[in-house]
């Protein structure tokens, strides 16, 4: 018999499955020293074991290299069809990431972690590297098995190169390896590997046949094996240290090492960075990669500039903080910075220039070795031949445009003119004091050169020194007015003047450059501050978006737009109009990806770097709010690590501001909800009581009538029927009151203002309350001169009814109720007074709160909303209502209604109407 009860094992499996799925996937790396050690084989073996245990295993992508034994292990495993990519004619296979995400298996096998995705084909890959694809899989909660060789690790790639002489191009950031959940070393002795090679069981790509034969020399194999073992050992060591640290008592806080790696524009920079990574790992230290931008270095060639960007990004990807400093001398800046950051070791490359040149100007390395007293300096020697680096001076970076190339002609003119002036001055002096020594005359020329150096720059000063010496020689040195250089001393003079020109000129140029850089940097910080400040005082998401877009587009000279997410989580263009600086062509697909994954994409990033724009996620601490899309005018500028960081800072600020706006909105909504909740609860409690009572009477009465119609006497029947009728009326009144209040409070009622005469409304109200007030004495005192009031007649009639009803309810029969009105300056005051017992309790204001009653519950009944309604109605009319006690006893309920400035009295109106009518 089919039980229909769910299978508990299935349930448990489901629960476990869901739990596991919620967490990030586990990455297991099958790690080997070489191709051919059997990583793919081991991976498949492990996968088969998993499958035997019932895990949902799918093969994402596996390179078989034609090995039969590996192929046999695929038996029984589901395979994902590979993506066919078209390369102008030929088709290549690639891993299909989207299919894998859609399939969502428990465990996915993806070979070759370090593989670079084929680009330039159709469709283009989402990520540049396979490890990024795998990260996306892990984020989606899928466990992954993958393989990688030791030579693919970024930090080891130059060591591998040293060992094997082969440069590894497909590298993997160490971070991915370090963060893997498990690393399984697949190891075989080199002899065995060589044996396999000879048997043809190791795959060698055709093109690299020869190179790889070199690669597979025994010495290399041993060295690589050692590297792989050591790397695995490091992991174990790290795990052990973490374990120990968790368990041990938090004792003394050991001083942390901090390492600073100083890089220059030369080819050794990459090597330095990798060495720094290894050292930092060994020491367990934080490390920084610092590039100092001296004025000389600002005029780098494009190739060098790109290399600098690459080196800094390499540092970041390996886990360092990448910093760019500015200063006159690299060594001084580095040391100063190192001290502020409490650096314990500085790593620097060996000096490049030959010794004799270094005598003239000390290299940075020498400077550091001499000047650092308390900081260790490690010098890394150069290895092998560096790539030929062109050091040609190219066009300067537009950001830091120096004054070279800018308007030189006026300066040359200045140089020439000043020489003429100096000569003239000297001539005058010479004429006045013929005995004046030539030394003094030279001084005047020297002074001129110095001044030209300050105001005209280096080149103008050089020109000036040449012209000056020439002029001096020509005019003042015997034989006068000729160029015979009879004395060698004038060469010395010339040399000194030239030297002065150069020194002052260079100094001046440097200072100016530094000032320009500092000014530029300060401006950028100011802009960031400006934006933050403006965001802080702006309210509302759309206003903030405009502020943000304007600032970003100005600072980064680009078009920008803020794409915010709607309720469904889709990123859309803002509803508000686009600005002149808006980026209208943003790719919403890319933006959606960025929003979903909270990672940047576009120019300068690892993902979808072919896009025209740059897309950054905007997120607060918890939620993402949207995407900042930029179209920079100069893409290269934006990809500098420093610029990129600044941009990320901007994005972070915007994200925080949006988060703040979101919180404010939520807080407000929560408040409103809480208040509504409170009202609703009070209402429910009240309804429950005040409606059930009459309902009980009605139900009982009607049931009795229905069931015993022939048995009851006429009198009884009459009585029951009457009570049913009365209670029904009462219920109806109460419900109407409730509805009235609800509609008033929620704004569903719009007052319809017309002119009414007060006595009209009083009359109607009294008519309705005839029964209630039949045993009271009602006196009406309404002055004749009372003007017509602009009010909603029915609402004010309601007020009068409520007040009169109350007066009737809370005073004994026979009491006096007086209705009065009087005209005050800008309003009319209406009072309902009685001479009953008056108001109980200290504060009459409480009466107007909802659900209050003057007397405690009893036979009087009523929900107690009447006065609250009055207050709401009066508020709608911009009037007031209050209650007070009268002497000697009795209550007075008074309310006011405002009068417009030109309210004519009734009498006047009558007159005018009469005239009109009789015409």
């Amino acid at each position, binding site marked *: 018999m089919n039980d229909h009860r769910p299978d508990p094992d299935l349930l448990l499996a489901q629960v476990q499955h869901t739990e596991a799925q919620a967490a990030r996937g586990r990455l297991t790396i099958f790690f080997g020293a070489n191709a051919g050690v059997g990583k793919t084989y081991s991976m498949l073996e492990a996968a088969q074991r998993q499958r035997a245990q019932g895990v949902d295993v799918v093969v994402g992508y596996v390179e078989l290299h034609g090995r039969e034994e590996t192929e046999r292990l695929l038996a029984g495993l589901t395979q994902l069809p590979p993506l066919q990519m078209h390369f102008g004619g030929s088709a290549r296979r690639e891993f299909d990431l989207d299919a894998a995400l859609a399939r969502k298996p428990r465990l996915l096998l993806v070979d070759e972690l370090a593989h670079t995705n084929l680009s330039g084909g159709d469709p283009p890959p989402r990520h540049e590297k396979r490890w990024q694809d795998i990260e996306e899989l892990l984020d989606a909660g899928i466990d992954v098995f993958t393989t990688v060789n030791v030579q693919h690790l970024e930090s080891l790639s130059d060591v591998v190169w040293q060992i094997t002489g082969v440069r590894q191009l497909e590298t993997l950031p160490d971070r991915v390896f370090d963060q893997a959940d498990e690393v399984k070393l697949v190891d075989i002795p080199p002899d065995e590997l060589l044996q396999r090679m000879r048997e043809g069981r190791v795959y060698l790509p055709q093109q690299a046949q020869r190179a790889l034969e070199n690669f597979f020399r025994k010495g290399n194999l041993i060295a690589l094996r050692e590297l792989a073992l050591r790397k695995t050992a490091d992991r174990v060591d790290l795990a052990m240290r973490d374990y120990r640290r968790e368990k041990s008592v938090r004792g003394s806080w050991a001083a942390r090492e901090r390492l600073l790696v100083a890089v220059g524009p030369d080819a050794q920079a990459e090597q330095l960075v990798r060495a720094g990574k290894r050292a930092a790992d060994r020491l367990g230290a934080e490390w920084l990669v610092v590039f100092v931008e001296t004025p000389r270095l600002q005029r780098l060639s494009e190739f060098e500039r790109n290399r600098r960007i690459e080196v800094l990004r390499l540092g970041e990807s390996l886990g360092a903080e990448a910093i760019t400093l500015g200063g006159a001398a690299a060594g001084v800046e580095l040391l100063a910075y190192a001290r502020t950051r409490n650096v314990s070791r500085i790593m620097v490359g060996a000096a490049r220039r030959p010794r004799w040149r270094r005598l003239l100007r000390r290299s940075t390395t020498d400077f550091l070795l001499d000047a650092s007293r308390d900081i260790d300096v490690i010098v890394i020697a150069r290895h092998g031949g560096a790539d030929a680096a062109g050091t040609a001076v190219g066009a300067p970076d537009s950001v830091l445009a120096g004054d070279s190339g800018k308007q030189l002609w006026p300066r040359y003119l200045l140089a020439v003119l000043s020489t003429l002036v100096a000569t003239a001055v000297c001539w005058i002096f010479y004429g006045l004091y013929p005995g004046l020594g030539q030394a003094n005359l030279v001084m005047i020329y020297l002074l001129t050169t110095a001044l030209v150096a300050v105001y005209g720059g280096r080149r103008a000063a050089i020109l000036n020194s040449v012209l000056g010496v020439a002029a001096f020689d020509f005019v003042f040195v015997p034989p006068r007015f000729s160029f015979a250089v009879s004395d060698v001393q004038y060469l010395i003079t010339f040399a000194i003047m030239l030297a002065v020109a150069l020194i002052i000129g260079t100094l001046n140029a440097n200072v100016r450059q530094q000032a320009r850089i500092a000014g530029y940097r300060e401006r950028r910080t100011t802009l960031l501050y400006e934006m933050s400040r403006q965001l802080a005082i702006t309210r509302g998401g759309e206003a903030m978006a405009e502020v943000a877009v304007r600032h970003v587009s100005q600072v980064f000279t680009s078009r920008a737009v803020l794409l915010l997410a709607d309720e469904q989580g889709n990123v859309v263009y803002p509803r508000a109009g686009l600005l002149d600086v808006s980026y209208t062509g943003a790719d919403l697909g890319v933006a959606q990806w960025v929003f979903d994954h909270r990672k940047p994409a576009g120019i300068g990033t690892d993902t979808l770097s072919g896009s025209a724009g740059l897309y950054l996620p905007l997120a607060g601490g918890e939620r993402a709010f949207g995407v900042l899309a930029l179209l920079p005018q100069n893409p290269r500028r934006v990809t500098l690590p420093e610029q990129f960081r600044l941009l990320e800072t901007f994005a972070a600020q915007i994200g925080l501001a949006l988060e703040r706006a979101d919180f404010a909105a939520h807080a407000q909504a929560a408040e409103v909800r809480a208040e509504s909740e409170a009202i609703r609860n009070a209402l429910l409690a009240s309804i429950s009581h005040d409606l059930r009572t009459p309902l009980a009477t009605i139900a009982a009465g009607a049931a009795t009538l229905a069931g015993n119609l022939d048995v009851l006497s006429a009198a009884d029947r009459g009585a029951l029927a009457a009570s049913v009728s009365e209670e*029904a009326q009462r219920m109806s009144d109460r419900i109407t009151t409730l509805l009235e209040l609800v509609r008033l409070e929620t704004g569903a009622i719009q007052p319809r203002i017309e002119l009414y*005469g007060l006595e009209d*409304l009083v009359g*109607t109200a009294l008519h309705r309350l005839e029964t209630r007030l039949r045993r009271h004495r009602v006196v009406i005192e309404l002055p004749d001169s009372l003007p*017509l009031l602009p009010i909603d007649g029915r609402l004010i009639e309601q007020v009068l009814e409520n007040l009169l009803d109350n007066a009737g309810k809370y005073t004994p029969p026979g009491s006096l109720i007086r209705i009065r009105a009087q005209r005050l300056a800008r309003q009319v005051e209406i009072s309902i007074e009685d001479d009953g017992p008056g108001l109980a309790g200290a504060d009459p204001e409480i009466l107007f709160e909802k659900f209050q009653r003057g007397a405690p519950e009893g036979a009087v009944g009523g929900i107690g909303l009447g006065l609250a309604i009055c207050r709401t109605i009066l508020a709608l009319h911009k009037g007031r209502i209050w209650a007070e006690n009268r002497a000697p006893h009795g209550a007075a309920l008074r309310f006011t209604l405002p009068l417009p400035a030109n309210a004519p009295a009734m009498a006047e*109106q009558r007159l005018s*109407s009469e005239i009109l009518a*009789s015409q």
Partner: protein
Amino acid sequence: MTLASRAVLVVEDEPQLRRVLRTLLELEKFRVFEADSAARALVEARTHKPDLLIVDLGLPDRDGSEVISGVRSWSRVPIIVLSARSDEADKVGALEAGADDYVTKPFGARELIARVQVALRHTAGAGAAGALLQIGGWRIDLTARSARDERGGELHLTPTEYRLLEVLAQHIGMVVTHRTLLQQVWGPGSAQQTHYLRVYMKQLRGKLEPDPARPRWLLTETGVGYRLAQRD
């Protein structure tokens, strides 16, 4: 009153209320036909040609006013509407579409029957008050334009006041909308000048009612219009 019992068509979608109305009306010797929707109402009206219609404004398929205007296009049969208390606009709309009077829910049986009787009287031709009115202690002759009390005392009323009384008297016992009053007394362009009415009604009350602050003849229907009560 004719001997043959008159027929009333009750247009009401609430079955319980229909039953109560039927009971009420049959007690007063009316024949009752029922319709639970606007569409049905129009059909029944043509089929049975009732002497009076009672139409609830809150019908499921169409607005009650549509029933009224539909019927009015081929008949002058009196129509009384049932409405919830706060729908002044709906009441005015219904009255201007051609209804003769209204009753607010929840209503007392007596009130409903009274209105029904008044409406029927008007159709029979005997409804209009004719030229003579009795308001307060005053006998008013609308044709002769005079107002006298029992002791012969005279009261001066302006021409406008007489005109106003005329219109109210034409619909004695039934409500007359502000608009109708204004248009008939002051002309078609005066539909918005409600304050004229206020002023004049106040005057009239002052002159005719024994207790102007608590009128018994010249009654205000707030937000809708005025009614001249019929008291014997």
